[in-house]
């Protein structure tokens, strides 16, 4: 496929940075899909995007687009376009000529390029804005023009580097809708850098999670949340519950008791950290079924509340809607669905298990394999 992007063993070190900014990154992105490169600041996401675009030369590794090695291919010949956090519109050109820029540098007559640009302005709902100077645009409008300008270059791969992070939440949501609409119309391969989990989940089908220059996991959005591959991945995805214990015969044994694990994965026996998303724990009344717990704290999270719970000496966190009458000291019952459970290696205890040297790591990626096989 023309827009498929494959990264093989990509590494990059900048002088004086101490360690590699990118470390052996392997990633495969199908043509026409949207993948979010997610991670905290300094994880190497933007450097990766720049390496794909040809703006940085990797120390080792290859970038392949549509199976073609991009080594030595200049940025202007890679068939990519990038939209960054700042719109970076050309201040000496009006809106229309900004969008027509890619056409005119390709040698298309100005009149034709402008007519084409007007179509893209219409696509981003800015019809009639062509004659305006770029300084007369609001932040959201400028970013729309930047997107139109990038799309007018007919890129096989569209690179987005935190394009909406400077916009207010409402406008960001509008831009997410716009991106979805553009994908339906033009279907480019999209790689989007973001540090916002919600944004990644809102716009992308798959997430590649980065930390310290390494790619921790690349999976569908659902699996990234429900089956993190490591404790670090779970924490970066916002997971708040980690229960130390041991896996035996498909169950996780801890202070909470024996909890059956999803049977779509073969769980390796040994010490393991049980993970369960705070959104998946159901908090019910004391007289209902489930695990007994006591409310030890409450914190408002906008329309929801984060409830701290003491269950058999284990600290758990659960998210509940605002309307629920809960107070500190209340006794409640917890329901933890089996499908919401995952186990990963506990870095503190995994090495103590007999045969730890030869035992494969406990990983919750098994279901990912199943999901891929199903597809």
């Amino acid at each position, binding site marked *: 496929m023309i827009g498929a992007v494959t990264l093989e063993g990509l590494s990059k070190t900048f002088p004086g940075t101490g360690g590699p900014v990118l470390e052996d990154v392997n990633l495969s992105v199908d043509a026409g899909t949207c993948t979010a490169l997610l991670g905290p600041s300094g994880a190497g996401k933007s450097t990766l995007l720049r390496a794909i675009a040809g703006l940085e030369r990797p120390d080792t590794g290859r970038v392949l687009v549509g199976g073609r090695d991009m080594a030595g291919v200049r*940025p202007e010949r890679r068939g990519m376009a990038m939209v*960054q956090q700042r719109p970076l519109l050309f*201040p000496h050109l009006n809106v229309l000529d900004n969008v027509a*820029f890619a056409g005119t540098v390709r040698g298309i007559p100005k009149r034709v390029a402008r007519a084409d640009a007007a179509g893209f302005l219409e696509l981003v709902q800015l019809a009639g804005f062509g*004659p305006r100077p770029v300084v007369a645009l609001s932040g959201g409008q400028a970013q729309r023009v930047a997107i139109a300008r990038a799309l007018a270059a007919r890129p096989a791969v569209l690179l987005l580097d935190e394009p909406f992070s400077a916009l207010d939440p409402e406008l960001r949501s509008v831009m997410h809708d716009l991106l979805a609409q553009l994908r339906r119309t033009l279907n480019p391969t999209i790689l989007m850098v973001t540090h916002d989990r919600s944004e990644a989940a809102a716009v992308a089908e798959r997430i590649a999670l980065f930390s310290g220059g390494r790619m921790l996991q690349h999976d569908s959005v659902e699996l990234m949340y429900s089956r993190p591959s490591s404790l670090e991945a779970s924490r970066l995805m916002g997971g708040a519950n980690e229960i130390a214990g041991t896996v035996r015969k498909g169950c996780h044994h801890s202070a909470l008791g024996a909890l059956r694990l999803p049977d779509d994965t073969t769980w390796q026996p040994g010490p393991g950290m049980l993970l369960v998303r705070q959104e998946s724990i159901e908090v019910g009344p004391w007289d209902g079924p489930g695990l007994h717990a006591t409310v030890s704290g409450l914190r408002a999270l906008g329309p929801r509340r984060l409830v701290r719970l003491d269950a058999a000496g284990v600290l758990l966190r659960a998210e509940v809607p605002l309307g629920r009458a809960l107070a500190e000291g209340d006794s409640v019952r917890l329901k933890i669905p089996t499908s919401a459970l995952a186990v990963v290696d506990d870095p503190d205890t995994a090495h103590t298990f007999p045969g730890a040297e030869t035992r494969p790591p406990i990983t919750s990626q098994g279901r990912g394999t199943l999901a891929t096989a199903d597809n």
Partner: protein
Amino acid sequence: MALTLPPDSRTPLSWPVQPGNGLRASHGIARTLRILLAMALALWFALPLVPLALWAFADRWSFPAVLPQAWGWDGVRTALAQGAVPAFGHSLLLGLLVSAVATPLGVLAARALAYHRVPYAPVVNVLLFAPLALPAFVAALGLNVLLLRLQVPPFAGVVLLLSVYALPYTSYTMRVAYGAHDLAIEEEARLLGASPWQVTWRVQLPLLAPALARAAFLAFLVGWSDYVITVLVGGGTIVTVPVLVASAAAGTGNDATVALLSAAALLPPLVLLLGLGLFGRRPTGGRP
């Protein structure tokens, strides 16, 4: 020439512009004082031109008369007879050549200092600004011997030396411009399909055009107004407007000629300055 300190290579050379900042607006007495000060400064600059303008067309003006007693064209005739036209031609050529040499050199130096790892950058900075600290006659006398030994023609020698003297102005002006220039815009242009050459012509040049015009204007002024280097290195063979003015001023009874030449010498830079003000702004790309 005014002495300007070299910019620190670590200091950002652009500051955010915040139009309409209430803290900077002046009201009441402060506003009146500001206007009065501006008017006094304008008067300070314009005042010397009044006697020049009067003298230029005064055939006779003896003390204690307040205004010339006889008006006429003697000054113009004498100036033309003394070679004012070729002198203007030489000055113009000198200014343009110095500008043509010093502006690209300043651009290269500024770009290197702004975007690249220049070894010993602070030393390079100081060297670029050294001509401002070095008295012109010292450099001229020292280098004149070298230029003569190398058989460099006098006019080329003058252009060469004046270009070195113009370099601090062009490099500093361009350094400020590059400090404010966003390379990410150039990267964006590359990703949109522009070749490095197209990026230079279609993005970098339009964005830096006002700074280039300013740098070229300052370099032109160095060539246009020089006296010491032209006389010492030119060996008296190159008669420019400042040389002609100095020669006329050294004699007696040439007041009208000196005034006329001095006033006329203001015109080319003034025209360039007006042009710079009118056309040297960055295009804003359309109507609001």
